[in-house]
């Protein structure tokens, strides 16, 4: 990438050239301070006025408060390492569930089991009452579970619009023949997909950057684009893996507001986040993991006063000194 030049004004220092996913986390630490006084922050205002309710993807819709997804006694072993140890929790339709825990507690592993990246050694993940079983990753996405990544994993050399279109395409069926002869199916899916993708970009405050390559976007925009791409698959359940990593407090607050708006539009959200204060503010319920085990579950207030959680986070217990 010889020319990562930024046509937008004066935020060169915030441009994360996320050419390789591995490079992204290293730059995130410094990005927060830089962006504090950045005038560009005010430009990328999110737009909650747009209706981005999930489209009907043929999944049985459960009513508010019913169980959407259930993690049932899931154990995952990598050789001798027990990454998840009989973890059980559930997510109700329409809630924001926080999944927290110290580093290495198994939060992202939990995501990976739910989205089909790993098969549980024992136990099962049930979605809408049915076990996910050995379904492929893309099939699980089509069922309505979408996720973002802790380390940004956009399609770096595709435009923001194309990134979102790939997500929208999850429910499209255009093949070579339809595309080759520009059959009505192709034209319909392209125009609807384009409209939907632009809606999502507008919602995320990225509509002005639809034709920027993903890798040329500033760090914060990349994070938001990941959410837009996940929303594009019209999920019932949106799993966000540390969406606020590397954000400054003001940006974090803005993002949490956005997550609430997403929920209000009809999505269910599972949120991994390190920042306790933020999680407390935005979630309805919280599940706490530590060393692959669930140590607590409850409302934010209950979690705040739970001695096991305090021990896990502050390390007062003699065993958890590290």
């Amino acid at each position, binding site marked *: 990438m010889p020319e990562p030049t930024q046509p937008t004004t004066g935020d060169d220092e915030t441009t994360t050239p996320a050419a390789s996913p591995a490079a992204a986390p290293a730059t995130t630490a410094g990005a927060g301070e830089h962006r504090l006084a950045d005038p560009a922050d005010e430009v990328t205002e999110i737009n909650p006025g747009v209706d981005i309710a999930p489209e009907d993807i043929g999944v049985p819709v459960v009513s508010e408060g019913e169980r959407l997804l259930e993690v049932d006694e899931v154990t995952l072993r990598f050789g001798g390492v027990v990454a998840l140890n009989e973890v059980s929790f559930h997510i109700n339709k329409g809630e924001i569930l926080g999944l927290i825990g110290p580093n290495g507690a198994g939060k992202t592993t939990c995501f990976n089991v739910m989205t089909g*990246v790993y098969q549980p050694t024992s136990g099962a993940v049930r979605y809408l009452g049915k076990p996910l079983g050995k379904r492929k990753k893309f099939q699980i996405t089509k069922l309505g579970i*979408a996720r973002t990544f802790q380390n940004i994993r956009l*399609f770096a050399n595709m435009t923001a619009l194309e990134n979102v279109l790939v997500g929208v395409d999850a429910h499209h069926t*255009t093949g070579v023949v339809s595309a080759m002869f520009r059959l009505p199916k*192709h034209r319909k899916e392209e125009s609807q997909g384009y409209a939907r993708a632009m809606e999502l970009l507008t919602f995320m405050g990225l509509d*002005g950057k639809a034709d920027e390559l993903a890798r040329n976007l500033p760090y914060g925009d990349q994070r938001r684009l990941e959410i837009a791409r996940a929303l594009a698959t019209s999920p019932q359940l949106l799993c966000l893996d540390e969406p606020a990593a590397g954000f400054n407090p003001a940006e974090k607050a803005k993002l949490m507001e956005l997550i609430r708006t997403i929920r209000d539009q009809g999505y269910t959200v599972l949120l991994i986040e390190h920042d306790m204060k933020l999680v407390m503010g935005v979630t309805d319920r919280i599940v706490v993991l530590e060393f692959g085990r669930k140590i607590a579950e409850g409302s934010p207030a209950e979690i705040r006063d739970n001695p096991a959680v305090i021990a896990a986070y502050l390390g007062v217990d003699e065993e958890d000194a590290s």
Partner: protein
Amino acid sequence: MSTPTSAPAARKPATRGFKERVDHLPRSVKIVLWVLFALFLFLLPLLNIPFITTEGSDFGGVLFTVATYVLVALGLNIVVGYAGLLDLGYVGFYAVGAYTVGVLTSEHAHLSWVVVVPIAIVVAMVSGVILGAPTLRVRGDYLAIVTLGFGEIVRLTLVNSQWLGGAQGISDIPKPPSAELFEVPSLDWSSGAPVVDLDTTSTFLKFGINDFVPYYWLALGIIGLVLLFDILVKSSRVGRAWEATREDEDAAELMGVPTFRFKLLAFALGAAIGGLSGALFATKAGFISPDSFQLLLSILFLAAVVVGGAGNRWGVIVGAIVVGYFPERFRDFADFRVLVFGLALMLLAIFRPQGLLPPRRTVRAKRADDRQAVLEEGEASA
């Protein structure tokens, strides 16, 4: 904004890309330019332009060879450029296409060329699926090794199978049916200025054994069709799925892209185009043997794609022309050909690692800007 002519556009500062400048021309001018360009390509072997024309070998034949390279590069670009699958055994599909034509028109049957070419495409496509179904589960370097093996397996099978002609190969491959419609005169530059030479002509689509220009025309027409196919498929869900898979296979899968299916599709389409190119080669040569399908050819095909800029169809065409044409033009240096080629590749890797014409998105970006401008105008006036 009203009817800009081509003249001011041509005088625009050099900072703007060639493509951008062309895009700014009005539609009618663009169509005229395209038609002129196509006509130029059509007449190229007969114009006998000094310096460009190869002296040692028949220019029509050289152009045909370049055209088969272009076709191969377009096919390989789908596999390597779009889907990001490193294929080092592409010559295998080229051989499958050529041998299908050889076997069905000469060695074991005498079917018509018109029937055999579609069969060759299908057989190459099936061979692509057969190779891809088990091997596309491995990634990167491993895939490269497996495909490298495939190319060699095909060649060794050809050498050792008497049914396929063995090391002697297959000869007497018949010509395609001719339709002698009209004659195209050539230009003669021997007096210094171009003079229309009515004695040296090429008959439009008379597939003989002396004049290779009609074969070039045939290949040119097929390139046009393949290009159209490429453009249509790339700008659809299929093209996006390929690119997403190339960028990040796991993320693509988690965004609902059945990556294996799309990789297999890319492989099959690439193989089909490679087979088509091989079929054309067999038709023109009239004789094929395992020696025509050496490993080096796979490397040259890949070089064409990489030199031109993997992922950009116009880039790989330029790459194919470079790889196919220059060795023929500079036959005087034939002994140093590989040396010069290696040097050129090294220089390219240092100064232009993404290829001569890396993929650009200016067209789409511009179109989106226009859309945006129209929207804003509408809002402002409302």
